[in-house]
């Protein structure tokens, strides 16, 4: 089983981002997703910068995938999308593209791309829809985190030919997108004049219930879980259902977490021991409910 590093969902200073990926270059990661998927106002790295990072990672032997924005609103968002598609499909260097919106699927089709990733926000819940994406050129299915292991196995079983499948295995869960920026709102600012307050908030801002229980995370226009979805303890059940595990970048310890996953997959560590080792590296308590078809917030341990 391979390891993929998901797109960076937070807004970190340029140098931190560059340092982060430099460190990833010799880590046991197989695929790296790059690009801004959350907010079009974030600009510490432009597309050219991401392509540069991609070149370095590709030279280090990583597969590089360029991710598209999840929520496309403006003409300028579409312009960015078209540039990504043009550059990655026909340009040099060329990279695989992750489509996160049906607009991207249409543009990839127009460009003749036959090797793209169907991203987690495409709302693929059944074999008919997935087959349609495969016919349109998708060669990997990055499953929406809310789909359980059993449900995704049913989808796979019903396909005419298998498709490489990637599950969200580690990180605060991306749960929702909005036109509203909740980080700006927290600081009593409007989105258009947000002062880029999300910059350098490494793991988003934790939202707690009025009992002080961590519940959600504010990450600009994205809302995430407060808990960290972690399938380290469930790897036995993941085998046979997916070929890639996605690890979502975290403010610190991402590389250590990647290495724990690799060790657990290679049998150098038992899943339970790996999960225990992982706990001090996590920004919040673990959860895995989605994988087990339960509320995502639950940490489920089979009896």
């Amino acid at each position, binding site marked *: 089983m391979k390891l993929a590093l998901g797109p960076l969902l937070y807004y970190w200073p340029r140098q931190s981002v560059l340092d982060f990926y430099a460190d990833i270059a010799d880590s046991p990661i197989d695929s790296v997703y790059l690009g801004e998927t959350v907010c079009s106002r974030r600009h510490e790295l432009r597309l050219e910068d991401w392509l540069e990072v991609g070149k370095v990672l590709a030279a280090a032997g990583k597969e590089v995938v360029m991710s598209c924005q999840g929520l496309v609103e403006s003409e300028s968002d579409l312009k960015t999308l078209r540039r990504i598609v043009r550059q990655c499909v026909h340009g040099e260097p060329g990279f695989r593209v992750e489509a996160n919106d049906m607009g991207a699927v249409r543009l990839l089709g127009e460009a003749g791309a036959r090797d793209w990733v169907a991203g987690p926000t495409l709302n693929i819940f059944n074999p008919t829809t997935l087959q349609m994406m495969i016919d349109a050129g998708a060669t990997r299915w990055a499953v929406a985190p809310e789909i359980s292991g059993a449900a995704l196995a049913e989808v796979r079983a019903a396909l005419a030919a298998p498709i490489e499948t990637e599950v969200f295995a580690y990180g605060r869960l991306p749960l929702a997108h*909005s036109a*509203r920026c909740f980080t700006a709102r927290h600081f009593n600012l409007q989105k258009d004049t947000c002062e880029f307050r999300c910059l350098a908030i490494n793991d988003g801002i934790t939202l707690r219930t009025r009992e002080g229980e961590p519940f959600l995370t504010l990450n600009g226009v994205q809302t995430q879980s407060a808990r960290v979805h972690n399938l380290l303890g469930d790897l036995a059940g993941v085998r046979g259902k997916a070929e890639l595990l996605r690890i979502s970048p975290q403010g610190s310890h991402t590389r250590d977490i990647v290495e724990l996953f690799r060790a657990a997959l290679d049998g150098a560590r038992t899943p339970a021991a790996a999960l225990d080792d992982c706990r001090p590296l996590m920004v919040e308590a673990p959860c895995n409910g989605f994988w087990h078809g339960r*509320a995502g917030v639950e940490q489920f341990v089979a009896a």
Partner: protein
Amino acid sequence: MQRIELVCPAGSLPALKTAVDHGADCVYLGFKDATNARNFSGLNFDPAQVREGIAYAHARGRKVLLALNTYPQASNWPSWTAAIDHAAEFGVDAVILADPGLMAYAARNHPQLRLHLSVQGSATSYEAINFYRERFGIQRAVLPRVLSMAQVEQVIANTQVEIEVFGFGGLCVMVEGRCALSAYATGESPNCNGACSPGKHVRWEDTPRGMETRLNGILIDRFADGERAGYPTLCKGRFEVNDETYYALEEPTSLNTLELLPELARIGIRAIKIEGRQRSPAYVAQVTRVWRAALDRLQAAPDAFQVTPAWMAELNKVSEGQSHTLGAYYRPWK
């Protein structure tokens, strides 16, 4: 000026008749199961009621749209395709779909059936909408409540698909069809189960600290004496962020775009949707009456259109939290 259709909600046969009687051009409804995004107990239509509703509407020259706007999974796929077959058999005027697989099924098996792209399809750009147009021949798309007026105008200018927008009612602060908050808290989502923050997970508790509302055990809000305790829709609770307690995501409020009607007409909106299949026939009557009057006034004298205080007062009475917002049409809201 192109006539704008008024599309009103019906959670029951009495609500459907009320909507028609008060001037709805179209009424939208769902079956009594998880195939639609308002899957609440005591709500929606069995086959006999759908037939009766269609007969009532058609006799008065109105249309009936059927919402089949949740996402079927491998295990329950046949229930959704059966729902499409029934919709075609009963003679609905269009089905409102979100799932591409289901659209392919409908286009293949019922080529005469008119397809609308649901707001749950999360299509926010003309590139996405044109994807559904080319693939399945959709004739109308309902836009998620995230775009500004200029962005809606841009969509309309670049697609042949008719555009429908929400005019009034409960407001999703998140992009519809892309929100797993309810799934995270309860295991049930609008996408797969047709319900957000479902009632069976709700608990109201009178405590010494005040009335507490919980969703699957998670405290969504706490109300002081004299505060009106609202339903714990999880994005509309009060939470703590950096030691500040406030409506961190959204206040309990309703969308109301009545004052934007001339602008919506100018950019070429074809239909206005009223939210609220879970609301009473009295709500449907009140809201439909006001919007019918407003649309008629607009049609008669587009340049002289003005929102009357009486209309706003009527609408505010049935708004969530008795307040309203222009939502994403108003930039500071973002």
